[in-house]
């Protein structure tokens, strides 16, 4: 068996290829790296989730005075008690599944997560959360740096991106994380007979095994193509997964269903990336607990509830940690379009069999007085309380069992919420 690995970095671009490796061998790698061991499922709410509509401070009078149209009526929220600051909170009425998980003590809610001088730009925000570096959000991602710590050669399926574009967080030096938005499309077609198709595939595999040092960009494309060719057969196995529950019929839930299939089939993936969008709610968020935002919450909550139930039925809840984030929270006061503009502090959630559920951090008073220290931007936005890197650090140390200081470029454990 021939293994050749070369990695190149140029202009921040990483090129990586593995020489031809048979699927059976990759399964060996997967087993060696701990198939059916712990995995992390990152859920990204794209667009900047309005945390105040997810976790509702329904006893704060300023919540209602600053959001006359879009505030969720107190009678509709799903009560989840009070935080350590004594503020009473409720989940969005569509998050019934998550309330059940919360009551089971397996949902941790970390309020007011973010970082100093929060970027109001989606793109910069995504890069900051992806790199875990607010000062220089370029280069490798925080999960990519984790994958780079795995024993070499890293299994191409150590990371699994269920969206089409590779997120910054998964950009790694040693491995190109495959994008598998739909397992049914993750296959290779041919204009010819099966025998000829096999010759084509062999030729394509040989061609893409080529990693010329003087043509790093060609090597990078070859690396992606070869990753695809060498993972096709294993991914196809996931496509046959029959879940134990019925998932909602939308892209987010179907991606979670695929992730469940991968976990159940023991592919050996450590980090999954799933996303659902539409959270850039500048307009028409909806009133009286309904409307567009409620639809977003149904997609989010119902999908996760199905995934959670499926994993529990499979006895895999203790192997799985779900971590949710968004690039920022939104403005406290609604705008003239029954929407909210870009804000600062947001909310993170963790779900799983090993999660210590509950409310972490404290809700801010929404009193718009400029002297309110819990707000920023002249009382317009929520000031962060928990650095998002502290949550990352807890996940890296407590779940993935690795040193967070080297990955995050600093020790953020001191104030990390004890969610696991």
């Amino acid at each position, binding site marked *: 068996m021939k293994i050749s690995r070369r990695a190149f970095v140029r202009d921040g671009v990483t090129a990586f290829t593995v020489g031809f490796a048979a699927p059976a061998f990759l399964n060996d790698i997967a087993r060696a790296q701990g198939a059916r061991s712990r995995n992390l499922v990152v859920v990204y709410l794209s667009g900047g989730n309005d945390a105040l509509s997810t976790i509702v401070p329904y006893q704060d009078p300023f919540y209602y005075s600053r959001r006359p149209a879009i505030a969720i009526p107190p009678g509709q929220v799903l009560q989840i008690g009070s935080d350590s600051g004594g503020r009473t909170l409720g989940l969005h009425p569509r998050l019934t599944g998550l309330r059940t998980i919360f009551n089971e003590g397996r949902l941790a809610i970390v309020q007011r997560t973010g970082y100093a001088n929060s970027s109001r730009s989606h793109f910069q925000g995504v890069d900051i959360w992806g790199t875990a570096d607010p000062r220089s959000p370029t280069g490798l991602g925080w999960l990519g740096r984790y994958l780079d710590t795995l024993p070499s050669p890293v299994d191409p399926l150590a990371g699994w991106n269920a969206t089409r574009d590779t997120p910054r967080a998964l950009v790694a030096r040693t491995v*190109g994380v495959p994008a598998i938005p739909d397992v049914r499309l*993750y296959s290779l077609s041919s*204009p010819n007979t099966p025998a000829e198709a096999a010759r*084509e595939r062999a*030729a394509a595999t040989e*061609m893409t095994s080529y990693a010329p040092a003087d043509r790093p960009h060609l090597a990078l494309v070859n690396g992606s193509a070869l990753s695809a060719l060498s993972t096709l057969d294993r991914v196809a196995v996931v496509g046959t997964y029959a879940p134990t529950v019925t998932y909602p019929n939308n892209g987010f839930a179907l991606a979670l269903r695929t992730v469940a299939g991968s976990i159940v089939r023991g592919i050996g993936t450590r980090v999954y990336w799933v996303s659902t969008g539409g959270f850039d709610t500048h307009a028409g968020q909806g009133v009286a607990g309904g409307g567009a935002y409620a639809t977003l919450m149904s997609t989010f909550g119902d999908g996760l509830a199905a995934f959670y139930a499926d994993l529990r039925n499979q006895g895999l809840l203790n192997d799985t940690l779900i971590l949710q984030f968004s690039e920022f929270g939104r403005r406290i006061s609604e705008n*003239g379009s029954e929407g909210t503009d870009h804000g600062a502090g947001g909310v993170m959630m963790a779900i799983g069999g090993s999660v210590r559920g509950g409310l972490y951090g404290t809700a801010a008073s929404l009193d718009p007085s400029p002297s309110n220290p819990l707000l920023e931007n002249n009382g317009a936005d929520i000031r962060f309380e928990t650095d998002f890197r502290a949550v990352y650090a807890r996940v890296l140390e407590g779940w993935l069992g690795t040193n967070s200081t080297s990955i995050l470029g600093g020790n953020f454990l001191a104030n990390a919420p004890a969610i696991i």
Partner: protein
Amino acid sequence: MADSELVAHLMRRGGFGATPADVARFEAAPVSAVVDYLVDYDRVPDDVDSKIGQSAYVGVTAGAGAFSPDTNIEHARQRWLFRMVHSQRPLQEKMALFWHNHFATAYSKIAGAVGSVHGTKMMALTRGALPGPPGQIELLREYALDSFQTLLFEIARDPAMVVWLDGRTNFRARPQENFAREIMELFTWGVGNYTEQDVYAAARVFTGWNLSARQGPANNNDPGAYYQFFYNPNQHDASAKRFSFQIYPGGDKTIPARPAADGLRDGMDLIAALAGHPETAKRLARKLWGFFISEMESPDPRFVDAVAGAYLANDTRMKPVIRYIFGSPWMLDAARRWTRYAWPAEYVARAIREVGWTGLSVDSARTPLTNMGQTLFEPPDVAGWSLGTGWISTGAMLARMNWAATLASNQRFNLSRAAAAARRTPDDFMGFFLGRLTPAPIDSVPYDALMAYLAGGASWPASDADLVAKSAGLAKLLVGSSEYQFI
């Protein structure tokens, strides 16, 4: 003098690849002849749409009913692909693609707001085909090489953009920041040049920039009804707006209070200030570097200075800027060939042009393009597509390889007829295909793999059956190769 390789390079960068006729026409001509052909496209009639449906061109698929690219978005996507494959004004389509990514507007939100007929009209209506203003993509085509300031002003009033960035709810009492933020962050000078307070002030500048519906409610799928830009002085914040940067040539940072009836001038003043700012010139120069010159090295500061200088010296007009770029030493440097990742639409159009289209419908590329990550009229967000290596993922590479298989399968009889004269040896056969298809140079390792493929399971001279199978297989491998993914 341009040699055939340089002609091909300029036609890949300025269009969707060179045809044999292009090479014959410009080979041994001065470089300026190719550049003028590309840039001065207004000398050539814009008649590509009239060829849709003619047998000599790639087909389109209408489904049930007539082909309706002004009111049906799937048909509009096919029309644009058709233009990329067949336009005699390739740079116009290329620049439209550049601007589509720059002013990235997604049909789905528009259609969600105003319905599919009006959503398609707002994105793609050709001027005069139906009542109403031209669609955004037609605006981008018309103003492709016009002044950027003019284009920005047109875009700010473009109905699709007004819906896309929520201008319809930008009211005096409750300004809406979406367009105000993006015009600075993405459309002009970029993060780092302005403050949050500037965003709020800019939102007030654009209060009252709205749409009005004409001839009916205009969300009833009546193709005769339409929306048009409407400035509503009653919703305009007429007070002064102070910025952290210079708005007027004298250095004044404040857009003065003026009667609401004149409030449109607020936006014109801000747009003029942003379009004419040296930071905008530099940011556009850097984007043009990535689009036209190279994605494999960061922009040469001398290029950025030269292009930004040309932009400012020409009152933000793009035509002299693009002409300068195409004749510049950076474009002509042979070392920078094949240094740009092909966008999926570019890849598909070039593949069709090279492999062939008799009996093919561009509709066959529609779903594959989505799988490659580029649905036309549907960028992922207002920042546009993730370019360069952003196109390259395992799933996207499978989609590219599979599109190559689809195209090769569709064209296998045409290809094998054309290749019949080269059936004697694998070397002849390979020579024929490398003359027709244009991957970046193939080194010996992948070349040997291709030769081994030709030898596998076939005897040479090739039988009729082998001729068809190997023509399809080799075309698939070449078009699906990593080498082919660069322009």
